[in-house]
């Protein structure tokens, strides 16, 4: 144990050059796509709210919520491009998703499925990269698909599996409701602010 400690210390202290590199050609584009849904406030809030909404339902419902999200995202990617005012729509969907979690967690399944699908569509619409080589665009799109869908799965797993193993499930639901109420307030205010800014510039 002591030898291992000294070895660890020596490794920590050893000055070495950092060789930053892309291990695979084009992998940078994949990572860019991976984090793209979280690169701006509006899509990041939307992703969080969709994750919380999916996480408020039981495991049996996961496929019926995550499936429409993935499909709608694919549709969005097909029809994607620069759409004016999409940030406002994303914030509005965020308000809808967080209201459902805060006021009726795990209930109103059809409304939740609709909101989740709308979220997927919007994330898909904003995830289409700018024109460029097809190969690079495909890699970036794959990154976005993986990033957004993994995030939804991750939040769902936290809410339905990881936390309930350690904390009483009712406390997890309560925490989800309180955080969703906070997110709803944030999204609603940003939406109002956008409206005021548009009015001022018009």
């Amino acid at each position, binding site marked *: 144990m002591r030898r291992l400690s000294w070895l660890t*210390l020596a490794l920590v202290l050893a000055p070495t050059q950092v060789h930053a590199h892309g291990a695979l050609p084009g992998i940078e584009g994949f990572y860019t796509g991976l984090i793209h849904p979280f690169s701006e*406030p509006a899509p990041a809030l939307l992703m969080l709210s969709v994750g919380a909404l999916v996480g408020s339902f039981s495991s049996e419902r996961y496929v019926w919520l995550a499936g429409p999200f993935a499909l709608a995202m694919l549709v969005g990617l097909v029809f994607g491009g620069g759409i004016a005012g999409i940030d406002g729509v994303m914030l509005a969907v965020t308000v809808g998703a967080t209201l459902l979690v805060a006021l009726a967690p795990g209930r109103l399944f059809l409304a939740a499925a609709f909101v989740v699908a709308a979220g997927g569509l919007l994330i898909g619409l904003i995830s289409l990269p700018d024109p460029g080589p097809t190969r690079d665009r495909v890699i970036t799109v794959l990154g976005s698909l993986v990033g957004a869908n993994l995030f939804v799965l991750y939040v769902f797993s936290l809410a339905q599996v990881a936390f309930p193993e350690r904390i009483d499930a009712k406390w997890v639901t*309560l925490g989800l409701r309180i955080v969703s*109420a906070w997110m*709803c*307030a944030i999204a*609603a205010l*940003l939406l109002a602010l956008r409206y005021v800014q548009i009015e001022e510039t018009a």
Partner: protein
Amino acid sequence: MKSFLRALPLGAAILLIGLLQAEHAFAHTGDGFGGGFVSGFTHPILGWDHVAAMVAVGLWGAFLGRPAIWILPVVFPLVMAFGAILGVLGLPVPGVETGIALSAVVLGAMIVFAAKPPLWMAGGLVGVFAIFHGYAHGAELPATADALGYVVGFVISTGLLHLIGIAFGLLVKWPGGRAAVRGAGGVISLAGIAFLAGWA
């Protein structure tokens, strides 16, 4: 525990080396997201009228018991956001400062007298006051450097003040704690009167 103690010297050594290493200081101007966040986070904390009312919501929730204790912190931010939107849009809401001061007086009195109205009435009362508090935050929002940071900051700060009130309010389970919580309600109510009279 033993493995923790054994790893302690190594951890201390690494910490010491880390502390002694010369690093660049990243001086910042306080604007951008960080500046907006700090500005928003401190807005409810630096206003004593806001602090008193937010803590009172949590304290009263503890007296009302379940489910009110947990419903109020969910409902309050939602209604507060509505009030803040009115503030952002510049729509007139009369008597905002009076409403904020009154919220401390009334909610404090509810705690002192251990009032237990029906949940809808308690939620409605808290909701009305939430509009005044939200309006005050929202009216200041457009002028801030970073709106997102400000909004995130003040929503989290408000929520944490509720949680402080709830944590303190949980003392009502014990007789001594019940007296302490009712006493705190009295202090909040008196502070509210001082805000109303312009003494504070």
